[in-house]
């Protein structure tokens, strides 16, 4: 599925979501499909503006003017159900590895099983004395299935979008339910993925200012955060640094050079925690009092049969897993997307540098001892090709991704891992996507070899 298709699906999903108890909203939305003040060059160009969610739709609406034709409140969502099996015990931990911290010497994020990036397990196990092996918070969320094949209700997602009738304001809330059977019993985590208001203050310009909890602006992988927009199932090994949502203020501006079918865009945010996923840095409050500034500068060329997008991203600010505002995190990134004749080529390079901070690290998964001097860099590259099938509403897209990550907790361990992913995405109409993929995880340097490959699948019902 190409980016173009992803947006189309998003738009369709928006409409389909109104097909039930918000029928009036569907009609109104279709009536509002009038040309926008500054029309997007293509659907995929609209994806450049923001993730292909309701934000995109809002940008294409008239900023001011006549009484809106859409229902003020629209409710949509999706349900992502998976079935996954990881090798071994579902972790990246070698059974005889007793280094402390255990999670610093391997990649605990490698055996991902779903679009949330949850690992099959993060259970550190025990040492020869029967004591739990020590971990220090470099951990993803866990699906908790270990090496046992299991169905998972990865995410039940509900989006609420309210469009003001009087002013060019949109209010958006994304709520997710994540049921898991923990060792302590059944629990369902309620996660507020996004909650923001956005104003488009200038009628003649593509300028949007958002305040609240919103998507990352770093790189491109955040565009596929949600299972119903992701071509594959699992996020890349670099996603942990770039795809987290956070709270703050964001401004997007794009200027189009229509004669040369090009556009430049700038997306800037100042947030509590930057773009690390919440398992590594919580976003609900600033621990330092100083925001993290993130920006992406993008260029896009949109021809009839070819679309090329490149971008450069940067982030700088105090790490939000500790309270020393002088302990900085710096991210640099570059991204590329090419869409041509059904083929989608995407890739990203990311470099991360975190300075050592104060002890008593606080992450989304708990409190830990130290915040360590950390360095990482890596890349991912993905190819997807939507087969030219003559069947309407039936899309088959094989895809493959290769990625490599070098991570180092300074003076402790430096590791290099890679991963090859291959999968198939089958879209049926606008409401159903069936995906399956296989992940081959390898420990190239520094980390002991473990069996942590994953086979996983996902059925995404969009409503």
């Amino acid at each position, binding site marked *: 599925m190409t980016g173009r298709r992803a947006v189309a699906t998003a738009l369709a999903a928006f409409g389909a979501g109104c097909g039930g108890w918000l029928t009036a909203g569907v009609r109104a939305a279709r009536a509002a499909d009038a040309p926008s003040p500054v029309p997007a060059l293509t659907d995929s160009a609209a994806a450049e503006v923001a993730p292909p969610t309701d934000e995109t739709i809002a940008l294409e609406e008239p900023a001011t003017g006549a009484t809106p034709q859409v229902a003020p409140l629209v409710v949509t969502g999706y349900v992502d159900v998976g079935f996954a099996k990881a090798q071994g015990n579902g972790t990246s931990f070698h059974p005889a590895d007793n280094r402390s911290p255990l999670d*610093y010497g391997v990649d605990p994020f490698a055996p991902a099983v779903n679009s949330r990036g949850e690992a099959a397990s993060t259970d550190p196990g025990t040492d020869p004395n029967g004591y739990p092996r*020590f971990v*220090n918070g470099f951990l993803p969320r866990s699906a908790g299935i270990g090496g046992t094949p299991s169905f998972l209700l990865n995410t039940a997602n509900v989006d609420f979008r309210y469009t003001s009738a009087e002013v060019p304001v949109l209010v958006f809330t994304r709520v997710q339910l994540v049921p898991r059977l923990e060792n302590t019993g059944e629990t369902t985590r309620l996660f507020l993925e996004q909650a923001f208001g956005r104003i488009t203050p200038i009628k003649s310009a593509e*300028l949007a200012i958002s305040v609240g909890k919103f998507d990352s602006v770093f790189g491109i992988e955040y565009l596929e955060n949600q299972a119903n927009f992701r071509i594959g199932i699992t996020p890349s090994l670099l996603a942990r640094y770039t795809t987290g949502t956070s709270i703050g203020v964001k401004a997007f*501006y794009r200027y189009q050079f229509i004669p040369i079918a090009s556009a430049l865009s700038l997306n800037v945010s*100042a947030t509590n925690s930057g773009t690390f996923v919440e398992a590594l840095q919580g976003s609900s409050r600033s621990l330092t*009092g100083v925001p993290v500034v993130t920006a992406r500068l993008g260029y896009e060329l949109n021809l009839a049969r070819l679309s090329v997008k490149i971008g450069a991203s940067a982030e700088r600010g105090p790490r939000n897993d500790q309270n020393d505002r002088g302990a900085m995190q710096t991210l640099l990134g570059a991204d590329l997307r090419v869409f041509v004749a059904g083929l989608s080529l995407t890739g990203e390079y990311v470099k991360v540098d975190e300075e050592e901070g104060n002890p008593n690290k606080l992450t989304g998964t708990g*409190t830990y001892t130290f915040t360590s001097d950390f360095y990482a860099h890596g890349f991912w590259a993905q190819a997807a090709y939507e087969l030219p099938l003559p069947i309407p509403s039936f899309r088959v897209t094989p895809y493959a991704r290769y990625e490599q990550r070098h991570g180092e907790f300074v003076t402790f361990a*430096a590791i290099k891992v890679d991963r090859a992913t291959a999968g198939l995405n089958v879209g049926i109409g606008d409401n159903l996507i069936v995906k399956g993929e296989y992940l081959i995880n390898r420990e190239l340097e520094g980390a002991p070899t473990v069996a942590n490959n994953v086979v996983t699948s996902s059925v995404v019902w969009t409503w």
Partner: protein
Amino acid sequence: MVVAALVAVVGPALAGCDARVREERKLWNLFGIQAALNANGVVATSEEIPTGIPASELLTRTSSGATLKVQRAFAEGAPAGFVTTEIWMNFYDAVWTQPLYAQVIDVVPQVTFVTDTRVIDVGPDSTFYSPFWQVNLAVVGDVAEDRYQSTTALLNNASQIIPAGERTCPIRPDDVTGTLALPAPWDAWNIPLQTVPPAKAVLDDEGTIEHFSLFDFGPDLFELEVEEHGAIVEATPMFVFAKPDGTLNTDEPRVLGAGEVAMDASGPRPRYGGLWRLYKVFLPASAGPFHGVDHPAARDRATDPLAYEGRFALDVTCFNDDRSFPDGCVWLDSQAQLEAVLGDGHLEATNITQTGPIVFWQKQAVPVNQ
């Protein structure tokens, strides 16, 4: 406009910034202590020890380098001695064990080592360095001594990894030795102490092979306790008397917390003392240490006056009553006595922990690594 909007939001936040909050933590190992010794400097400078501890209190210069210096203490009412190889400042409860691998050809019919050099993963430059090792036998067959020099290689290639207990083995500079002797004034007892056995280890630092020397204080000197995210080395209290200004008086003998001691023909064998947490002892104004030079009458009455040198009493006036000395004094020379006489309110944990194997107790040498 974008910039203006960001400034409008971010500006006030920045304008309201408080000063940077920074909690410094530091680990002094024998490399750092020796460097301080060579510079005639101090270590462990902190709020509790503003002037630091002279490195010369921990190491003694020798013609070829330095050797461990025994520090005086009292434990369970008896003179004791320990050595310091590491000091951690602001590490909270965060001293772990690290794995150490001994390569063996096989374990049957007997354990046959490939080499006497052990493989480790964490060196002295690391925040996560620890002298407390989980020893493992890695069965690798009859291979060259330098075939495997990283733990990753051993984990990937060993046919078996067999746990073999824990040992306390501080990494040391090659020229720091473990020839021990009692310090003054207890050197007058002429009690010989054992030499700490050496050991060797190798570490693969991203392809660079580094060789290290270690001291081997042997097994069973620490225990583990389970915290929220794993097991850590449990620290035993080591009591340091406070000066009137509240800082630690590191010039006088300390009091070692209670622990298990096995006794046999070769001497006392403490089964603790690997890791200590320093506790500050707030004293009443009447308390103070005994020094024979200041109270010659009392000194001359005691059967073994050296055994009381530096020992704190609750009321120093007992030093003046030579008729009842030393039994007439309330001595602060054991954990139980401190807790009973002073109470918990006078004992305050600090953020300082240290390695401190006991090498002397009850006027006997403690067998090291036996």
